């Protein structure tokens, strides 16, 4: 993991002092509401329905055990004993007091954390694959590049007042587990024929009000040009992005208006000024960054451990958990474990302070003290010896985090919705709970196989409903909550946006609608064919006909 240098530590400490002064001036009336708003947003502080919300940055989703313990401590002392992990791999505290926000930031600074640029019209937290660095299928570890871009983008003075927010994601190749095609900039690892390392660059993707799949603007960007090229994109966007209408201010609209070719030409002209110049990242920097993340200390672990094998044979529940929640690790004898934050009856992504402390302890015992947050709102232990899996499973069960549902219907992604968020048109958490309760039978869930369900309480799409195989969007009609259903969204290399199937439903109808969709799938699927593939093969009509009785 990256460890702060003196400069990083000073920056977060100075930032706390600066924000404390701004908060004091706001509270005593010297700083107006309008002038304070962008300042507090750039420090992660929203004003919400019930209380202010503080969003803490978890850069590229990586946490150390001691950092997770600090988050638990903050949840206890400043909130109501829990936090909410988000689809940008951050954590939100929904019940903080405005005047205590500087104290929370000061606590975070003691463990090399902050809330800088988790909101506002600036470059947001960088995200990546939760399996980065350990995935068996990656070309190279994207985290050193995430950290380089994190440092470059943190308080970059030219880019703190962009037309709108700006999100960047990196993926390490092969399988895109970071949804790079749904970011303002997405960088996908590439190795050129001559062995040079670089990235394919996607631009203009995003969800929200005007969802779009990002377009590839450059097949191969050599890694040393990463910051020069990103700076060129940001400068073109900062100067030419629309500022007259916040709903048309994201870079995707600029790309559309200029056309991909026109936008790319502007960026390449801008890049021509810096290409090969002093902004190139040096080999020494790459080596230094890679050293922070490289792990060469795996104790040899047998790929075939007798205790592990006995546990698999002896417990169906354990075997099921391994099937869904344990993934391949690039090191033989090791595994990547996903701890589910999707237990039925618990709001997706929520974790209590006790659970955070418990996961910190499990990480120290079984995962070299490291935890990842996934954009599907689960926690990941990336370095687990297979022989430790039975003990880890027991520990996770005791915390209520061993639900064997990763990648299944009930592993649904969901924003906090109208219960908390002042932007929301509808509640999302109760609908998620109703779906989880209705489909709580593990045999049925396993039979259905991989299925992604995403739900958002409004068009801002924090629940990423457009990329759910089944998407649910809360909408407001005459002050009533209604839910629109989409089908066919997906992330990864076949990225697609879901299509609306017809008129929206009342909350109480949603479990039945899902049941109808699943029955159609079970009826048409070929053996072993996942939901999304069957849907793409047979098309939407059969599903619509079932749900709307042929009248859609």
């Amino acid at each position, binding site marked *: 993991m990256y460890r702060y*240098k*003196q*400069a*990083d530590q*000073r*920056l977060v400490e*100075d*930032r706390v002092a*600066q924000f404390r002064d*701004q908060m004091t001036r706001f509270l005593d009336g010297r*700083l107006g509401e309008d*002038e304070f708003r*962008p*300042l507090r947003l750039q420090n992660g502080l929203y004003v919400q329905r019930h209380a202010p919300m503080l969003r803490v940055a978890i850069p590229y989703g990586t946490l150390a055990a001691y950092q997770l313990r600090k988050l638990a401590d903050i949840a206890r002392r400043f909130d109501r004993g829990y936090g909410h992990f988000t689809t940008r791999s951050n954590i939100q505290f929904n019940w903080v007091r405005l005047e205590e926000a500087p104290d929370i930031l000061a606590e975070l600074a003691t463990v090399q954390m902050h809330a800088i640029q988790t909101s506002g*019209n600036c470059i947001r937290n960088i995200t990546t694959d939760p399996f980065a660095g350990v995935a068996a299928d990656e070309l190279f570890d994207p985290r050193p590049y995430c950290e*380089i871009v*994190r*440092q*470059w983008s*943190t*308080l*970059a*003075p*030219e*880019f*703190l*007042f*962009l037309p709108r927010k700006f999100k960047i994601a990196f993926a390490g190749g092969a399988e895109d587990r970071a949804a790079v095609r749904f970011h303002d900039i997405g960088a996908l690892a590439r190795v050129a024929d001559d062995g040079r390392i670089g990235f394919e660059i996607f631009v203009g993707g995003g969800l929200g009000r005007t969802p779009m799949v990002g377009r590839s603007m450059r097949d191969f960007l050599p890694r040393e040009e990463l*910051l020069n090229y990103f700076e060129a994109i940001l*400068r073109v966007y*900062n*100067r030419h992005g629309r*500022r007259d209408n916040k709903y048309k201010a994201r870079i995707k609209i600029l790309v559309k208006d200029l056309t991909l070719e026109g936008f790319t030409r502007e960026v390449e002209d801008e890049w021509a*000024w810096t290409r090969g110049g*002093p*902004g190139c*990242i040096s080999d020494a*920097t790459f080596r230094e960054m890679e050293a922070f993340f490289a792990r060469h200390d795996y104790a040899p672990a047998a790929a075939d451990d007798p205790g592990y094998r006995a546990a698999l044979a002896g417990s169906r529940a354990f075997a099921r958990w391994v099937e869904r929640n344990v993934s391949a690790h690039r090191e033989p004898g090791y595994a990547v474990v996903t701890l589910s934050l999707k237990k039925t009856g618990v709001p997706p992504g929520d974790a209590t302070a006790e659970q955070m402390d418990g996961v910190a302890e499990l990480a120290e015992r079984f995962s070299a003290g490291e935890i990842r947050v996934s954009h599907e709102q689960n926690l990941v232990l990336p370095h687990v010896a297979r022989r430790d899996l039975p003990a880890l499973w027991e520990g996770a069960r005791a915390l209520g985090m061993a639900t064997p549902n990763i990648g299944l219907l009930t592993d649904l992604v969901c924003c906090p919705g109208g219960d908390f968020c002042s932007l929301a048109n509808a509640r999302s958490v109760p609908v998620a709970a109703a779906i989880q309760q209705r489909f709580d039978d593990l045999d049925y869930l396993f039979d259905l196989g991989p299925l992604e369900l995403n739900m958002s309480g409004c068009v801002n799409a924090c629940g990423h409903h457009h990329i759910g195989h089944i998407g649910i969007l809360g909408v407001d009609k005459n002050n009533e909550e209604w839910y629109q259903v989409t089908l066919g969204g997906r992330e990864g290399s076949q990225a697609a946006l879901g299509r609306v199937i017809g008129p929206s439903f009342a909350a109480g109808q949603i479990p039945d609608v899902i049941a109808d969709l699943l029955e159609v799938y079970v009826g048409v699927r070929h053996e072993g064919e996942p939901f999304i593939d069957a849907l793409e093969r047979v098309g939407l009509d059969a599903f619509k006909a079932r749900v709307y009785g042929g009248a859609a």
Partner: protein
Amino acid sequence: MSTLIRHGKVADDHWQWIEGDVPRVVERLEAGEHLVLPLAVWSAHRARLDPLRASVWLGPDDVPETLLPWLAGIPLVAIHFPVFTDGRGYSLAHLLRRRHGYTGELRAVGDVLVDQLALMAQCGIDSFRLRADQPPAAALAALAGGLRSPWPGSVVP
């Protein structure tokens, strides 16, 4: 009257701000006035302007490259921030100072607030016409103190 801060001190200002296309610009310059002209006016009269008494201001969507052939001789370039949340001026400042090597006075005018001064300074702006309600002492403190390691972390030298 709002305060001008130049090179870290409260300063007097002998420049007069010209908002639009006013008459008799050349005559006023010849009469000894020092004027900050909109880019369009400056461009229209450029050949007849005394470079020591005529300077130019840019709006957020002006193209700073227009000035390039004459940039070295212009004593003052002002960048107008219509609202402090409009960040285009930061890019204009970066381009003039860092890319095109402008060494004269680079001034922020308009919605110029204490909490953004350090960011503007990092983009190469060295004088600030504060919004009228901004306390000069706080502005001086913000420019003198600010973040000890502002940017860019430790990646780029």
